[in-house]
């Protein structure tokens, strides 16, 4: 079951990179970036999964050796990663708006004043 998650996350990352590389529209590049980011988030979450474990929330008294939890650390990492993904998308969209304003187009083949 968990293998399916790994395959899906690998597929998402590769799809994200494919989208960045081949699509000549700046907005699509931003979409590609966020897809790759979601792929990695899925990978982080699925690593922390222990089959049969419950959510790592307990009151002080109930902790006994039989209680079996899912690994809490990747969940914290995923939260940070989602926040970072959101910031990346926000900043890149701000840049894309400014690019459209000053270059008049979103086609990355035209946005190449700095080359050579």
């Amino acid at each position, binding site marked *: 079951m968990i293998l399916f998650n790994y395959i899906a996350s690998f597929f998402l990352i590769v799809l994200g990179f494919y989208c960045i590389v081949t699509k000549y529209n700046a907005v699509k590049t931003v979409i590609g970036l966020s897809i*790759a*980011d979601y792929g990695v988030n899925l990978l*982080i979450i699925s690593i922390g999964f222990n089959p049969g474990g419950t959510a790592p929330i307990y009151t002080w008294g109930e902790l006994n050796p039989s209680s079996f939890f899912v690994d809490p650390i990747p969940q914290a990492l995923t939260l940070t990663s989602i926040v*970072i993904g959101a910031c990346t998308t926000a900043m890149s969209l701000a840049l894309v708006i400014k*690019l459209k304003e*000053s*270059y008049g187009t979103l086609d990355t083949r035209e946005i*190449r004043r*700095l*080359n050579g």
Partner: protein
Amino acid sequence: MTNLLSYTHFPVYSIMVLFLGAFLVVIAGKSKALRHIFAICAVTASLACLIALIKPVMIDGEVIAYWMGAREPAGGYAIGIALEVDALSLFFGLLIATAVFVSCCYSITYMRFDENVSQYYTLFLMLSGGVIGLVLSGDLFNMFIMVEILTFAAVALTAFRNKAHGALEAAFKYLVVGCIGSTCILAGTIMLYAQARTLNFAQLSAFIPGNFNTSTIIAFALLYIGFSTKAFIVPFHPLAADAHGAAPASISVLISGVLTKSGIYGIIRLTYFLFQSMALGKMQFLLVFIGSVSMFVCVTMALAQHDFKRLLAFHSISQIGYVLTACGLCTALGISAGLYHAMNHTLFKGLLFLAAGAVLQQTGTTDLNKLGGLSKRMPHTTVLFLIGAFSISGIPPFNGFASKWMVYQATYQKAVESGNIGFLFATIIALITSVLTLASFVKVSQSVFFGQLPEEYKDVKEVPFGMRFAMGIFAVLCIVTGLFRELVTHYLTEPAARAVFDVGKYINSMLGDGYASAVMGANAPVRTEVVFDMAGTWQPIHWLLLLCILLLAITLVALLGRYDTVSENKAALAEGKFDIFFGGEKSVPSQVGGGDLFWGFKHNWRHYFSFMHDLHSGIVNDYALWAVVALALAMLYMLIVL
């Protein structure tokens, strides 16, 4: 409560002061003076904390392990986030703090014409806090967070002057490929966590070398590519060229002097500590090959540039190639030479970018074909620029020569010891790159500072004192680190090189003594005695004494020979006696500079130059393609080698 002022807390203070400064600058709001005070105090405090750490870490060789929230490791598992400061991280920390301090002093007067400068200082302090956090942190995920902070701050600062030519485009490309790099780092960190169930750097470097399997090797490739996007090495160097070309000069100092060093720091930590795989000949070959290629490619690209700052950007990648080649040799002398060159590079490259900023502010353009003869209007900037140019091209008394000289010794010694002819080519490429660097800086000095002054720059004035003071600090440091080579290597680079070879102490100081031998058993890193002897001899003081005595003697001879210079007298001036000789014609301003220099060299290499020009197409997708292809190649290489 342990004593708050004991030096163990200083690593956290140096990071927190910067982030606190970033917050206070926003509160300062409208008043310029308050904002400048907050910025300068934050930067000086951070530098002071790190300087105070030199005594315990560098001289006494102690490794400071600082657990955030006082969460000591329980049952052999590190729970809290840790800061670990050993000689290597302190060396990079000092380097970064100095560059940040000088750049902050410079930007006070440099940014006086721009509006909403408080956002500038916030981003500036966030960037410096992120970099110092990256260098001092002992936790892999914490390093990823710091990498994200500095990438966002750098992207925003690159696009700060969004009216500048290509600033937005440069920021967008930097963001796209930077985020590909960050995604790789995150994926690599997570795959390591999946294997070792811990994020603490010391525990990982104890756990991983024992059991390499496919997922740790792929994690190694991901992390390596992630950090090389931050260091702008060969497949990612167009980012740096675009980012420097458009960013304000004080930010270019940070990007070229500081961000590239954080990338190199990441790679050194990765290869020498986390995976301890540098003993393998193949791994050394990878780093030295990438270093040599980026050395040569970027210096030839720099020769073909028409813009002052883009030329400097390509040079900073070529110097990073030097650092990577030296650090990839896995010899004590190599690492010491590489770190020494990294320090010198931050100093002279900072000086050159500040000089470029001064020229940009006074004349409004950095195009080599339009400028000329500024030395008559801006004498101080010219002198400071010349010190930087002589340092980067390795002219003996200056610091560039001292570190390049050590790099040649290291590469050639490695070639001799290992008998592998590849390192010999690295030495030859390094020497040829040094001459090409000299050529491109002769080109810049001829087309910007000497030659004839064009009409529109007749009334250009010298830059205000604040900017010259900042450049002066870098110039003095360039000369001092060049002259006192033994002091610098003894107190700064050799302790750092010893720290790189002493992974056991790094692990034990973090997780309690004996931990490394307990976990790693047989291949626990034993403390090898490190030797720094060199085959050559070079005493700069001696040479300088000779030169001064001779200068005295020759000036006497010159004065003796009735060295009577004729000041301009009205009659002769009218006749044209003091005009430039134009074959009798009235002297028309005709500046030889920029594109029309070094025709002989460019003509012989014209196919190479046209190919490289087309390769750097400037399209985001191409750079992303290079990044992905580099990732694939790195994975393939690592799987075969390790």
